[in-house]
């Protein structure tokens, strides 16, 4: 919401500087986003009257002007613009002036002629034609500016004399005199050789001495468009030039008030609970309460007395009563459509609204001032003199004012006449009842519509308007009548038409007044403060709450105030949040801390980081094609995922049931960034269907991913083992896993702790890696957090250090290639007896010296007794037992 400080001044006088104002309003709850000083960049620019113009002696396109700036002697300025004439009032940027965009103007020399400043265009002042519609420039095609595209074959002969034919009825003419005509037009006296002619034209670039082309049939001066010429053929005949002022101002006046650049516009962020603050009056009330200033409001007074009886012209029906709590309308006849006055245009402009014409401007003005959206219909097009507020029929069509065509359904509320829809209620009027130049009778609508219906309608049609944005927050039902009266008052003030007596006011659902009890003790107890009751009363009254003893009547526009806590907020806002004490909680203490699961999370993270893995965070949603990329067959039940019905895009449309695609994507991305030796982990969730209440079963997965020189299957396995050791998991078994489609069938293992499957690890299947654009080996592990939590062992209990020395025996074994290390180790352990303490593999060898199909594995065994130093004979006996068992069960022999 934008607020003009000048407009605010009409209701409450605030002298605070922009910064003070912003600070104070922000702290009382109306957050100021920014303040724009409309004229901050403009200095030393004044109004000047063109006193004299002569052509530049050394230029074919410049003029040397003398400007009266209200001082004794005029100022000489050289300009290349052609649209000014003697007598025009123009903005003059004097020597050492500044303009928007940080532009600085200094005096200078233009082709040997002194120029003491610059005449300004609209754009140079930071404006455009929408700000000053009358300043639109039309250019005639002047023969003296003609530059043929092909000098050999000019379209207009260089020797052409006045009266010569150019084509058809178009003749060359010399301008003998130029005088101002009606409505900014110019009267040109033309010499056509044998005859003379006076033509009125909107073209502003014509001066005595110019040669132009005139259409003798239509009696018009030809523009570039008229003769189908290109701009480069007439380089100086452009629709641009100096801003010729038609404002009430005099030479020497500062330009800022003339173009309303002396205003400051404050941009507020208004929270959705305060639609009343989406208006100048609403913000004025907040400002008055904030600064302790007096709020001066104005009661609209309508003289009325327009010809005829309102009831003869108009009836209103509201069959959709639930969606239209109130409908208020008045009528104006004998309307004269014209531009609205400068003050109104300025106020609209400063609030960011484009002026259109007096009637439309009045509706916008009232909307800004009162916060009540208004609509004006051309009565001609309200067929049958009847307005019906109803739900649209399915398939009903309507073209809105912006020219967009909509197909509606029963969820949309329309304003209709006897036969058809003429407007989208609360959103935008219909093109078929638009106020146009010859509109003579107008119906003003000031209604209250259901916020949700308007919001959903606007959303469905993709056309959120200023009006719908207000309605959707729920407006004050009591505001429709004052607003329509204000519009009619403005019609009379502007002399824009005759207001009929009487008002149509259909009240389907009027609000019950809200009465609350002021409970100062409870308010103070909630705030932890000690605000005196009188202070509370003063604050509430400053916001137009009516306080009678301890009875508080809430104003109709404060739909957000319903109970004690709401009153507490009002008190706190103006007492000052920052004036409330700052205390520490008393009361019962609670025992805080991490749960077992959270502690485990922290430990897992710390462990894998120690192993070199960096933490990543990936999106929980993935593309459905991710399951294809990790090579899950289409029948894989794990593909069953939560599907977002309104995703941002296909790529983020389903909730992942595996973290693998997320990890692989990040690995591939890092590889594409040419990052070497990457190790990553994430403790992230997967989401399976089938949770309680239709929710998901959300499980956390510790995912590891890596590529690079220092990673292979065993390096990855080492990290997984480190994790399991850290959590003291027991009975850890790695089983070959050849059927997991994402992984290399010969380099993948499932990890078990006892019966619990903890997860999977391995090299990513080359085809899967390829799906992520990777030729190199990628590695990943997926460990189920719940399983890790389940298998994590109890806190350690100290085991006494050995009292007696241990004996080491190394065994080099030869066994069949198919005999796994786990099998050999298992066999050694089972046969080892009470002295065997540790079995450590230290070498694997295949090649020369080892028979085909066999391999050698070497183990270091640690043997020890708790009763005394182990005797050699006991050690020998143990080793012999182990060897015997190895040979019998696995066919393994000593090398």
């Amino acid at each position, binding site marked *: 919401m934008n607020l003009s400080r000048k407009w605010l001044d009409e209701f409450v006088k605030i002298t605070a500087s922009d910064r003070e104002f912003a600070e104070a309003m922000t702290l009382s709850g109306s957050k100021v986003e920014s303040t724009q000083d409309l004229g901050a960049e403009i200095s030393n620019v004044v109004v000047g009257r063109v006193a004299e113009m002569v052509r530049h002696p050394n230029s074919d396109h410049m003029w040397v002007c003398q400007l009266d700036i209200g001082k004794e002697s005029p100022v000489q300025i050289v300009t290349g613009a052609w649209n000014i004439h003697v007598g025009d009032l123009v903005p003059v940027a004097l020597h050492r002036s500044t303009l928007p965009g940080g532009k600085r103007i200094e005096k200078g020399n233009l082709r040997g002629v002194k120029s003491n400043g610059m005449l300004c265009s609209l754009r140079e002042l930071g404006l455009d034609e929408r700000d000053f519609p009358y300043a639109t420039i039309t250019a005639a095609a002047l023969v003296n500016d003609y530059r043929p595209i092909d000098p050999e074959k000019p379209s207009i002969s260089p020797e052409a004399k006045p009266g010569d034919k150019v084509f058809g009825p178009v003749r060359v003419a010399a301008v003998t005199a130029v005088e101002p005509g009606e409505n900014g037009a110019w009267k040109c006296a033309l010499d056509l050789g044998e005859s003379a002619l006076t033509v009125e034209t909107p073209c502003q670039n014509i001066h005595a001495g110019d040669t132009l082309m005139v259409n003798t049939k239509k009696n018009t001066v030809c523009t570039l468009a008229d003769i189908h010429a290109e701009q480069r053929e007439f380089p100086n005949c452009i629709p641009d030039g100096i801003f010729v002022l038609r404002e009430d101002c005099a030479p020497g006046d500062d330009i800022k008030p003339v173009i309303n650049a002396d205003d400051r516009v404050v941009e507020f962020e208004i929270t959705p609970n305060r639609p009343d603050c989406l208006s100048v009056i609403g913000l004025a009330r907040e400002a008055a309460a904030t600064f302790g200033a007096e709020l001066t409001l104005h009661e609209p007074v309508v003289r009325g007395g327009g010809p005829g009886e309102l009831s003869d012209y108009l009836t209103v029906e509201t069959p959709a009563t639930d969606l239209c709590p109130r409908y208020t309308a008045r009528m104006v006849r004998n309307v004269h459509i014209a531009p609205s006055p400068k003050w109104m245009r300025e106020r609209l402009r400063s609030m960011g609204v484009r002026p259109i014409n007096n009637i439309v401007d009045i509706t916008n003005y009232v909307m800004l001032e009162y916060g009540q959206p208004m609509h004006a219909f051309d009565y001609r097009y309200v067929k049958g003199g009847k307005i019906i507020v109803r739900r649209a029929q399915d398939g009903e069509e309507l073209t809105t004012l912006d020219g967009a065509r909509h197909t509606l359904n029963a969820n949309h509320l329309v304003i209709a006449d006897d036969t058809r829809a003429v407007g989208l209620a609360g959103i935008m009027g219909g093109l078929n009842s638009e106020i146009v130049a010859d509109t003579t009778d107008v119906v003003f609508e000031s209604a209250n519509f259901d916020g949700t219906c308007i919001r959903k309608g606007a959303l469905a049609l993709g056309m959120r308007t200023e009006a719908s944005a207000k309605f959707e927050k729920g407006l004050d039902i009591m505001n429709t009548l004052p607003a329509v009266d204000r519009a009619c008052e403005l019609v009379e003030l502007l002399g824009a038409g005759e207001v009929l007596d009487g008002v149509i006011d259909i009240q389907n659902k009027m609000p019950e007044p809200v009465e609350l009890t002021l409970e100062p003790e409870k308010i103070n107890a*909630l705030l932890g403060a000690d605000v005196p009751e009188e202070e509370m009363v003063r604050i509430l009254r400053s916001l137009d709450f009516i306080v009678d003893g301890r009875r508080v009547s809430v104003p109709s526009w404060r739909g957000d105030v319903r109970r004690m806590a709401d009153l507490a907020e009002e008190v706190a806002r103006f007492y000052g949040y920052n004036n409330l004490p700052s205390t520490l909680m008393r009361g019962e203490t609670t025992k805080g801390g991490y749960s077992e699961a959270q502690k485990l999370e922290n430990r897992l993270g710390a462990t894998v980081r120690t192993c070199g893995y960096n933490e990543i965070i990936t999106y929980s949603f993935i593309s459905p094609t991710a399951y294809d990329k990790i090579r899950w067959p289409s029948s894989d039940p794990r593909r069953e995922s939560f599907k977002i*019905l309104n995703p941002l895009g296909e790529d983020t449309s389903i909730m992942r049931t595996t973290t693998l695609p997320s990890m692989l994507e990040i690995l591939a991305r890092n590889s594409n960034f040419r990052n070497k030796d990457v190790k990553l982990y994430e403790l992230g969730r997967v989401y399976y269907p089938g949770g309680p209440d239709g929710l*998901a079963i959300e499980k956390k997965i510790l995912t590891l991913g890596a590529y690079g020189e220092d990673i292979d299957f065993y390096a990855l396995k080492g990290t997984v083992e480190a994790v399991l050791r850290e959590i003291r998991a027991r009975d850890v078994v790695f089983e070959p896993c050849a059927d997991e489609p994402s992984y290399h069938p010969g380099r993948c293992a499932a990890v078990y702790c006892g019966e619990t499957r903890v997860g999977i690890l391995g090299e990513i299947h080359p085809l899967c890696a390829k799906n992520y654009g990777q030729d190199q080996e990628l590695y990943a592990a997926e460990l189920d957090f719940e399983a890790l939590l389940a298998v994590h062992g109890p806190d350690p209990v100290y085991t006494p250090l050995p009292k007696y020395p241990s004996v080491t025996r190394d065994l080099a074994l030869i066994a069949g290639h198919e005999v796994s290390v786990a099998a050999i180790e298992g066999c050694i352990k089972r046969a080892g007896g009470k002295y065997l303490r540790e079995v450590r593999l230290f070498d694997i060898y295949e090649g020369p010296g080892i028979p085909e199909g066999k391999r050698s594995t070497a183990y270091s065994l640690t043997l020890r007794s708790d009763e005394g130093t182990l005797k050699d004979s006991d050690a020998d006996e143990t080793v012999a037992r182990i060897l015997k068992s190895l040979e019998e069960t696995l066919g393994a022999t000593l090398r």
Partner: protein
Amino acid sequence: MREKLARLREEALARLGAVSGQAELEELRVKYLGKKGEITAILREMGRLPAEERPAMGQLANDVRAAIESGIAAAKTKVEAAALEARLKSEALDVTVPGREVTVGKRHPMYVALDEMKEIFIGMGFTVLDGPEVELAELNFDRLNAEEGHPSRDWSDTFYFDRDSRVMLRSQTSPMQVRAMDSMELPIRIIAPGRVYRKDEVDATHSPMFHQVEGMVIDKGVTMADLKGTLNTVVEKLYGAGTKTRFRPHHFPFTEPSCEVDVQCHKCGGAGCPTCKGEGWIELLGAGMIHPHVLEMAGIDPEVWSGWAFGFGLERTAMRRFMIDDLRLIFENDVRFLRQF
């Protein structure tokens, strides 16, 4: 013989004084003190001396032996010191050569910020709560005063899993307030960090998935002044003692009164600069006293119990903490980024 011994002593001590290596020293030891050494040779001649001279000569020979022995010991010390010095010299390293690399992985910067936050709240008696991301609209909205028709429920803002808009991706961590109220004994002090989802396109400040930290206290006699006191303490712990805060009125459907909390800009100290967009303050979080209706819906009597709640964006906090200027870096997971923290 006497002269022989004196010469021997003189010669031996002179040679020992000039000895330069371990081998030479050993050679001298053998030469003088060895079984076939010179002292032994002289002692062997003792037999030829008259008996009365023997004790004195024996004494002298022993003195000479002792002198040579201590000479050898002194030479040995010297030789060893020289050898050590030479060894140390030869072993000298270029200590500017980089050490052997140990690669330790890093915590994601956002979780670093979260860990700091958790520690602060746990120290104040809070419990850390975890909850579902696929959530009921009832808990995410209805139970937090955002009834049917509230704009945040629109399909343009929130992700849904069913046509009835019943199951959704939580758009805030606030449903954890409701879950805590429904499942925990009073009084309650919790924080609940986690992922939340909104339908925002990815840019430098937006992401469809981001993280919030919810906090809530319910107890008897909890006041807005307590909310201020607690948050001020947290801010000082996060941003340093003496960091100023500012409480501004705001609106949230589930708190009343509601506020937003700003911290004074760390860059300009409140004067106004590009970092704080000229305001001198940076928005930190939203908070407020739990709306009595929210308590009522959870079966908690607002006449007896009161509470406050807050919620803030973790990404923004981490970005400020580490001066990260683009949110996309958080989810891009480029190790060149991750390794910096």
